[in-house]
């Protein structure tokens, strides 16, 4: 059984043992103590029934990865400006791809994301909700870590700080209550095949990150293992794999991928994939040829820009196969998971803004007949409208905060 704790880093400002009472009744059950000065408190925590740990010595079935504080990235020049990508869309840092990657690299472990809030910042409750949900929707856990101002406010019982604290614990509790969602299988449009190590580490990781930013659900496929690729003949099927590693694929790996392509998939490959038949000259960066029912798009140059690759891949797959499509969501992310019998699904929606949207719509690929929307503080949202479309449903949401869970049934 994999360790499934909800971790929190004990704030340095919390010197008093009475503060353990704040955690009573919440799902937070593992406290991280970083400094030797907290050894007495650590002892007291253990007496009170909490698991305690320091990050250097965790149970073997917990993987910790360094993350980024999730949200819209502010420009480095510190002007308060929002940093934007090449097309002006705001950059969003999130850790979902990291949870997926670590889960793939270390199967059978719980993944924790260590991403403290930025120094010297006042973080709103909604941002903490994002931090919790950002990792939890992928089955991971963000190590709850309070900014200094919040920690002090909670310790001194300031009302606004307690309200933020309530948001954090509600969010943690929500995901602890829905541990069953982790048994559902993530749905992805694009798979990234790599060993994500050595020379391939940066590019592979950035592809996962940037595919998500381009709105495409993606899955890391560790090339040393069985890829489990199936023909893309369902609305929720994976449609493409990307091979951008600097070394040529093994014969077995090549066969797995080409079988997928011949059944209708798309392969986006680096020159290292190897020579193939010359493709059409329509794309300035890729030589594209058909293979069976599918296509191989081989880049003409060595991969050097993961942003370009990610966006090229999304276009080559086509938005026709979008799994989740947003309107009026602003900077968004989503995670789509489906039950083994494909009759139920959970689609997690994340809105990376100070306030959630007030008239967002989302289209989910799949033949569903009903939806139930919930948030961390509402078991069932009212005023959710469902429209049936061809091989998809469109859901109109009322005003919501930064996170919504959609439970769909066929």
């Amino acid at each position, binding site marked *: 059984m994999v360790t499934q704790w909800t971790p929190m880093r004990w704030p340095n400002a919390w010197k008093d043992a009475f503060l353990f009472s704040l955690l009573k009744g919440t799902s937070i059950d593992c406290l991280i103590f970083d400094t030797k000065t907290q050894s007495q408190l650590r002892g007291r925590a253990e007496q009170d029934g909490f698991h305690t740990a320091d990050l250097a010595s965790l149970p073997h079935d917990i993987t910790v990865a360094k993350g980024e504080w999730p949200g819209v990235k502010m420009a480095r020049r510190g002007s308060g400006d929002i940093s934007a990508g090449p097309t002006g869309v705001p950059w969003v840092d999130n850790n979902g791809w990291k949870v997926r990657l670590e889960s793939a690299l270390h199967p059978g472990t719980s993944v924790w994301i260590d991403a403290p809030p930025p120094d010297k910042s006042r973080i709103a409750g909604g941002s903490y909700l994002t931090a919790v949900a950002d990792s939890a929707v992928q089955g991971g856990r963000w190590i709850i870590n309070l900014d200094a101002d919040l920690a002090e406010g909670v310790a001194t019982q300031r009302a606004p700080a307690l309200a933020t604290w309530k948001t954090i614990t509600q969010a943690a509790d929500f995901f602890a209550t829905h541990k069953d969602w982790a048994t559902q299988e993530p749905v992805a449009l694009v798979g990234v095949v790599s060993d994500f190590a050595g020379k391939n580490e940066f590019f592979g990781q950035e592809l996962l990150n940037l595919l998500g930013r381009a709105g495409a659900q993606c899955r890391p496929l560790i090339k040393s293992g069985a890829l489990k690729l199936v023909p893309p003949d369902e609305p929720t099927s994976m449609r493409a794999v990307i091979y951008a590693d600097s070394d040529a694929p093994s014969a077995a790996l090549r066969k797995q991928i080409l079988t997928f392509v011949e059944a209708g998939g798309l392969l986006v490959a680096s020159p290292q994939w190897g020579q193939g038949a010359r493709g059409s000259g329509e794309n300035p960066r890729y030589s594209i040829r058909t293979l069976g029912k599918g296509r191989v798009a081989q880049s003409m140059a060595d991969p050097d820009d993961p942003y370009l690759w990610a966006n090229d891949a999304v276009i080559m797959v086509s*938005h026709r196969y979008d799994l989740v499509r947003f309107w009026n969501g602003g900077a968004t992310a989503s995670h789509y998971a489906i039950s083994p019998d494909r009759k139920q699904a959970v689609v997690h929606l994340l809105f990376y803004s100070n306030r959630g949207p007030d008239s967002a719509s989302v289209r989910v690929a799949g033949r569903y007949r009903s939806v139930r929307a919930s948030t961390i503080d509402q078991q069932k949202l009212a005023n959710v409208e469902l429209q049936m479309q061809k091989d998809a449903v469109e859901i109109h949401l009322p005003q919501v905060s930064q996170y919504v869970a959609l439970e769909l049934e066929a």
Partner: protein
Amino acid sequence: MPCQYSRRQWIINAGAAVSGAYLGGAQFGNAATAPTSPVVVSRCQTYNPNELVPVMQKMFDQLGGLDRLVRNKTVAIKVNLTGSPTYRLGYHPLEDTHYTHPQVIGTAVHLMGKAGARRIRILESPWSTAAPVEEYILQANWEPRDILNAAANVEFENTNYLGRGKKYSRMPVPFGGYIFPAFDLNHSYEDCDVFVSIAKMKEHATAGITLSMKNCFGLTPCTIYGTGAGVDEPSLVPAGGRDIVHGGYRQPSKSAPSEKDPKTPRVDTYRVPRTVVDLCAARPIHLSIVESIKTMTGGEGPWVNEEHKLVSPGLMIAGLNPVTTDAVSMALMGFDPLADRGTPPFEVCDSTLRLAEDAGLGTRDLKRIEVIGTPIAQAMFDIAGMRKKRRSVPPPPVGIRG
């Protein structure tokens, strides 16, 4: 009115034109002699093809028939897909509020195909992307095949960059231009025999209104005229909007013609109407269609800082001259097409119609325009009145959250 000139002749014989006398050089103030052309107004309550197809067929027949205009010709259709496809007015599909409706596009394509068009190219410069137009409209929840299959030999082209061309086409402004003497545009705007503008009837935050002429603001590729345009040469892909045209904080890429006079006001309410007229002169419009079966009030898209509403005027307008078509469309909105700066809808900007009339592109004087079909007085949908009422109170907080 038949298209007598090939595309080469349009460029070479700048002094002669089908729909008016474009005068060489900067000769303005031609209102009295600006050409006129009939405009058809039809009621159409829905986008259902059972209603829309016969309505549009009749409109084209009333203008002399599509056959004479498009038979054996390459037709380029500029549509209006302004703003990101992920930005809706509330929950309304974009095509109801601020995009040219795909049924209108598909019907136009179908009827042109039936009339013998050899090739039909649907053009747009989608926001900040070099991706195919098909991908853009898929994100709006459209099915591009519905348009591509509406006739034989139909294709989309993204004109926000070089696209499928080997070079940009230099399109001079025959009357010399207000702001630009010429433009470098995607080849598709030159490689056509007939140019059609299909616009959505809307108000516009900068230009007052956006109709068949303002639709052509999107002809300019952002690789040359946009935020991320190359300084010396065009950038490879577009990024951002047309800030160079709006604000004039710098010149387009040096490979393209610069402004005539960099000392003119660097103000968008001055520059945008003039640039629109320059573009409509450089790339004349043979057929203007303004669709207003449904539209929105308050601006050209939901990002505009005004109160917005989905409305259903139930109108289709078409004409062979963009100025007369836009003048009648303005009147159908409840505005006076003779209005100028200071008068709604041009409270803070110059009138594109007045500037176009002065440049000799067409008349905006309703007394000189024959209206066929439903009279303006019967068809008018009082967007002007709604604007007046709306502006009598402070605007709501900024646009859409999230």
